[in-house]
C-alpha cells in the first residue's frame, strides 16, 4: 500500500515537472516517501517498544538528584512544548478555509500564531537550555545520561531551534510567510494518502529543514525516553482513586475445602 502511495506521489510530482521539463527525485523522496517511512517507524516502533519493553517505558526522572534547576526548567519546557503542540495542530491540521469561515482573518490568525508561537517557543527553548545545562553540569544527572539521551537531546534541540528560527525569520524579521497555503496542505495530503510533494518546493529553507528534522525526531521517538508522552496520565482524572486488582485470572471456579479438612 505504501508503495502505491509513493507511486502516486511520484506521479503527482511528475505532473508539473512535465512543464518544467525535469522531475526531481529528491522532491519525491523527501516529501512523498520519507513521511511514510517516519510514520511507519513511529507506529511500529511504539508497538514494538510497548510489546517488548514495558519496563523501560518511563520518564526516567532525575528529580531525585537535583531539584532546583528542574523546578524551573522542566515546567517551562513542558508547558511550552504543549502550547507549541496545540499551535501546530491549529496551523497544520485545521485548513485555512475553516478559520476563514469562522470569521478569523488571515492577519488576525497570523498575529495570534506568531505572538503565541514565539512566546511558547522561547519558553520551550529556555526550559530546554536549563535542562541541558543541568544535565551537563550536575554530576549525578550527567552520569545517569545515556548516549541515547544525548542523541535525543541533540535532535530535539535542532527541531525546536529550526522551528523557532523559521517563525522569527519569516514573520518577524521577514515580510511574513503563509505556510497554510503550502506546508499545511502538504501535511494533510500525507494523511489523506495522496501526498503532494510539489507543495513543499517553494517553501523557505528553514521551514523545510524544520519539517525534515521533525521527521527525524519522530523516527527516533519510539526508541528514546520521549515515549513517556504517549502514556500521559489523562486517565487519572476519571479513574477511581484506589485500584484493586486480582492476583491473576483464575483458572476456574475453585472447589472450597470441606470444613473438616486440615487447613495448614
Amino acid at each position, binding site marked *: 500500500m505504501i508503495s502505491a502511495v509513493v507511486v502516486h506521489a511520484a506521479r503527482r510530482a511528475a505532473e508539473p515537472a512535465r512543464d518544467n521539463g525535469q522531475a526531481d527525485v529528491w522532491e519525491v523522496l523527501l516529501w512523498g516517501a520519507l513521511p511514510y517511512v517516519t510514520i511507519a517507524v513511529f507506529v511500529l516502533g511504539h508497538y514494538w517498544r510497548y510489546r517488548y*519493553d514495558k519496563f523501560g517505558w518511563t520518564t526516567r526522572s532525575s528529580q531525585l538528584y537535583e531539584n532546583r534547576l528542574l523546578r524551573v526548567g522542566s515546567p517551562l519546557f513542558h508547558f511550552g512544548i504543549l502550547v507549541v503542540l496545540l499551535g501546530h495542530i491549529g496551523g497544520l491540521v485545521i485548513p485555512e478555509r475553516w478559520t476563514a469561515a469562522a470569521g478569523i482573518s488571515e492577519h488576525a490568525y497570523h498575529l495570534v500564531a506568531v505572538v503565541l508561537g514565539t512566546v511558547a517557543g522561547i519558553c520551550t527553548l529556555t526550559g530546554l537550555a536549563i535542562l541541558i545545562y543541568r544535565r551537563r553540569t550536575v554530576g549525578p544527572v550527567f552520569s545517569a545520561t545515556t548516549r541515547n539521551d544525548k542523541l535525543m537531546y541533540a535532535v530535539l534541540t535542532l527541531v525546536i531551534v529550526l522551528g523557532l528560527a523559521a517563525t522569527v525569520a519569516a514573520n518577524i524579521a521577514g515580510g511574513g510567510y503563509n505556510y497554510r497555503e503550502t506546508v499545511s496542505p502538504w501535511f494533510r495530503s500525507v494523511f489523506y494518502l495522496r501526498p503532494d510533494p510539489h507543495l513543499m518546493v517553494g517553501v523557505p529553507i528553514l521551514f523545510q529543514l524544520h519539517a525534515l528534522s521533525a521527521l527525524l525526531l519522530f523516527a527516533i521517538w519510539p526508541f528514546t525516553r520521549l515515549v513517556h508522552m504517549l502514556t500521559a496520565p489523562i486517565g487519572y482524572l476519571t479513574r477511581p482513586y484506589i485500584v484493586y486488582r486480582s492476583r491473576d485470572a483464575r483458572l476456574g471456579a475453585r472447589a472450597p475445602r470441606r470444613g473438616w479438612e486440615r487447613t*495448614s
Partner: protein
Amino acid sequence: MRVMAQLAMVMNLDKCIGCHTCSVTCKQAWTNRGGVEYVWFNNVETRPGQGYPRRYEDQETWRGGWTLNRRGRLTLKGGGRWRKLLTIFANPRLPSIDDYYEPWTYDYDTLTNAPLQEHTPVARPRSLISGRDMKISWSANWDDDLGGSPGLADRDVVLGQVSEKVRLEFEQTFMFYLPRICEHCLNPSCAASCPSGAIYKRTEDGIVLVDQDRCRGWRMCVTGCPYKKVYFNHRTGKAEKCTFCFPRTEVGLPTVCSETCVGRLRYIGLMLYDADRVLEAATTPDDTGLYEAQREVFLDPHDPRVAAEAERAGIPRDWIEAARRSPVHALINTYRVALPLHPEYRTLPMVWYIPPLSPVVDVVRDTGHDAENPGNLFAAIDALRIPVDYLARLFTAGDPAPVDAVLRRLAAMRSYMRDINLGHDPDEGIPDKVGMTGEQMYDMYRLLALAKYDERYVIPPAHAEQAHQLEELATECSLDYEGGPGMGGWGPFGESSGGAAPVAVENFHMLQQRQTADRPSGPSDKRTRVNLLNWDGKGAPEGLFPPRPDGAGPGGANPPADSGAAETEPKP
C-alpha cells in the same frame, strides 16, 4: 457488607532490641540492586528521632496521606487530581536524595592493588550516585541509639507536638525502637496519588504493589505516602516498595523481616474487613476517633454471618479458618493491645504496634520499688505522662486513653503472671481491673511470650490450583520468564529495559559484578545468572563457578566420584 481479606502485621515493641536484622535481611533479599542502594523497605528507627527519610512525619512539609476538606470530604493532602497533573513535570514535594542519604561504596581497589608503602592505604567512600569521592554525613540509621540526645531530639516531629516541659525532660525518660515497613493500608494514598494507576491493592490479600510495567515514574506516590515507604529507583525510573514478601506469603511463609526477627516480635495474620465501611472510617471527623473507627471496620471472623458473607465474596474456606486463628486479630480486637501507627494520616494502616511498657517498668525499678507490683505499675503509668503522651502522638493521634489502657493491660499481665510463675494463687482482681478475665490474660501472655512459629505466623497459602500462576513457584524454569536470560537475553536498552525480572532472580553474580565494577553500573553479562534460591547445594549449575582451566566446563559436568548416585542437577 463486602468482606475482604487483608494480610496484616503486629509488632511488639517491648521486644525490639534494635538489632536491625530485619532491615539487613530485607535489604539483601529485595533492595540489593542498582538504583535502590538508598532504599530500605524495612528500617528500624530510634525513638525519639527523626526517622528515615529525615522528618518524614512532618506532613506540613511533605503533604502525604489524606485530609478532610472544608466540606468534610476525604481528599489527598498533596492536592487533587488536577493539581497532581499540573505539577507532574516537577513534583514540588519530592524528598531529595539528601533527605534519605547519598548511598556509597568504598574504593577497595586501592587496598588490594596498593604497592608496598610506608602508610596503610585507605579505602575512601565513593558515591553510588555520582561515582565521585564523597564525605559520608548521613544514612538511614545514622542516629541509631541517639534518641533524645540534644541536637537530634528537637528535630523529632512527634516530640515537637508534645509540650515543652515534656521535651526538656525527655532525654532522661526513655528510648525505644520502631521497626517500619510499608503499612499496606486499607485506604492507600500512594495508590490514589499514582497518575498511571500502576499501584494497586490485591483483592485476595490486600497487599499494595507497584506494577513495574505500568509505572511511568511520575513520582507522585513518593509524595502521597505519608510513611515515605514508596521509593524511586533512580536507575530504572520506577517506584518500588515493600511487597510484604508476596512470593513467600503466597506459599505460606512469613516475610523475610519476620522470619529473621531475632526478638520474634512480629506477628502475621489475616484480618477480615468490610470494604464498604473503609471510606466512612477514613472520613471520621476527629483525628482521635480514627483508631476506634478503624477497629470498627474489622469484622469478627467467628461471627457466622461474617463467615457466610466472606464465602459469598469468594474468600476460600481455609482463609476464613486462618482469619479465626489470626494472632493479629487477637492482638488488635480481642486483647486490644495493638495500635496503628499514625492513624491521623487517614490511610487506615495495617501494620500495628504494641506500645512498649518497658520504659515504665525501668523507671519503677530504678526507684527501688517492685516493678511487678500492679499498684506500682499503674501508678507509674499515671505519673509518667511523658511516654504516654509521646506514644499517643505516634499511635492514637494524641489521645492518651487508648495507650493508657494498653499499658495497663500489659502491666496487669506482668503482675498476674508473676503470681502464677511463683506458685502463688493468681489474683483475679488484677485482670478484673483492666476488664479482662484471668483466662484471657493467660492466653494473651501465651501469645505474647510463648507463641511458636505457627502461632505467630498464620498465613494461609494461595491456592494450589493457582500455583502455576504464582510467579516464584518454580514449576517451570525460573529463568524462563519472558525476555529473561532463559528466553535469550535482555532488552536492547540495558538492564532497565525488557521485562521486569521476577523478584527472586537476584544472585551471586549480580552482586559480585556490582561490587567489583569500576563504576556504579549494571552487570553487562546477565546470561550467567543463577538463582541461588533454587540451588540445592548439589552439583554446579553453569555460571556458578568459574570455568575449569582444563576445559572440562563447570564442575557439574564431572561430579566428584564420591557423590555417588546423589543428584547432580540443580532442582528446577
